[in-house]
């Protein structure tokens, strides 16, 4: 099985960063700290002044601390057309309101924007009290702020390690018909005692070679899972890593007993783990799934009883 990167257009690392952020940030985190509200008893004329002075296009309607509706500039225009500028807001507001919770992830919030098409959503806490309002503008602002913070952090980190060449730079600077670094780790089978040591050592070595932290993490996690599999299910084997100009290849090769049904082994949650593996916190049937997610490409070949050969490839992103 071969998996290819499907991303197109913007640089893949930038893409992933923003995508990660919408899964990390909550609505509450991007919501502006203050908001303007109106009472249902106020008139549409008063609303006009309020919208103008605060440069708003809509606002929540609140009575006794509770959200009772939303009123927008569109409602104001309709009121003007109907000659109802002195009508109370209560009569002109929308009472069927879609809300968001402050602890909801931004990704849900964005989905709601495209589903309902409203321009703003009131934000509630879990006691259903109104705590703020969120617009597309606040999402963009929140993401930009977070990007800025992370950019500054990575800049200051970069300044600290400026003298250290990255892997890619190194390969640009040296010339040979073929250049690579090879690492080999022997993994004992049927014991988890030292499992993870090879992954940890490899991660350290790649760090010294200047591989960037997000890629280090992906390689570390995938190698660790591969190592756990060798230690849990096989008679033992080797982990090989090859660092080249374009990226890193990690292979896990064992001497048996092999996987009878590779398709099945790749299904999330499928596991043949014995109890001793489960007691140690593994064997949930997520190892290969995790490796697949971490690697840019993964290939699994297995035959019974000869053994299994897993190949994963990781591309440099910076």
């Amino acid at each position, binding site marked *: 099985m071969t998996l290819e990167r499907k991303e197109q257009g913007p640089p893949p690392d930038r893409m*992933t960063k923003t*995508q*990660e952020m919408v*899964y*990390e940030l*909550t609505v509450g985190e991007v919501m502006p700290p203050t908001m303007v509200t109106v009472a249902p008893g106020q008139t549409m004329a008063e609303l006009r002044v309020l919208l103008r002075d605060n440069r708003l296009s809509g606002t929540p309607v609140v009575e006794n601390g509770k959200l009772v509706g939303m009123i927008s500039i569109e409602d104001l225009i309709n009121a003007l057309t109907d000659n109802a500028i002195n009508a109370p807001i209560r009569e002109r507001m929308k009472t069927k309101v879609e809300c968001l919770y402050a*602890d909801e*992830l931004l990704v849900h919030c964005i989905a709601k924007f495209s589903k309902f098409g409203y321009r703003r959503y009131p934000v509630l806490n879990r006691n259903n009290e109104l705590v703020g309002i969120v617009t597309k503008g606040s999402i963009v602002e929140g993401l930009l702020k977070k990007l800025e913070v992370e950019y500054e952090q990575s800049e200051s980190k970069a300044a600290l390690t400026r003298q250290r060449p990255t892997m890619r730079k190194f390969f640009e600077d040296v010339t040979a018909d073929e250049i690579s670094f090879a690492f080999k780790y022997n993994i004992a089978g049927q014991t*988890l005692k030292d*499992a*993870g*040591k090879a*992954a*940890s050592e490899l*991660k350290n070595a790649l760090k010294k070679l200047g591989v960037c*932290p*997000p890629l280090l*993490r992906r390689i*570390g*996690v995938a190698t*660790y*899972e591969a190592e*756990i599999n060798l230690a849990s299910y096989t008679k033992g084997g080797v982990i090989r890593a090859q660092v080249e100009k374009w990226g890193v290849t990690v292979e896990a090769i064992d001497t048996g007993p092999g996987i009878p049904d590779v398709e099945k082994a790749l299904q999330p949650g499928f596991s043949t783990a014995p109890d001793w593996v489960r007691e*140690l*916190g*593994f064997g*949930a*049937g*997520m*190892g290969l*799934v*995790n490796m697949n*997610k*971490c690697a840019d490409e993964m290939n699994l070949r297995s035959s019974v009883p000869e053994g299994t050969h897993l190949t994963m490839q990781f591309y440099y992103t910076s």
Partner: protein
Amino acid sequence: MKLREIISLLHAEVLAGEDLINGIDVDRCYSADLMSDVLGRSHANGILITGITNPQAIRTADIADIQAVCVVRGKQPEAEAVALAKQKDLPLFITKMGMFEACGILYTNGLRGVAERQ
């Protein structure tokens, strides 16, 4: 949330990395007994709460760049796990609270979970 604050909220006892605790500030929490569930999540600035007492809990945290490990239900981590935590400069502490209670307290105080890796 400051790691020091978490330790005091959980009435935890520090077994490794005492000198690192004041410099760590986290906002996320991984809680799992299955290490693959931890490895399957995206990266976040967080701690790991677990019932696993063997060195694999420390290995997992180290590989996934997690900032600290807390073992629940008063279980004593294996000596090898404590030694590994010290070697990896990873704060390790234990609390008598159960997983549910510990996570509940941290959630109430502002820590949040970690999204699945995409």
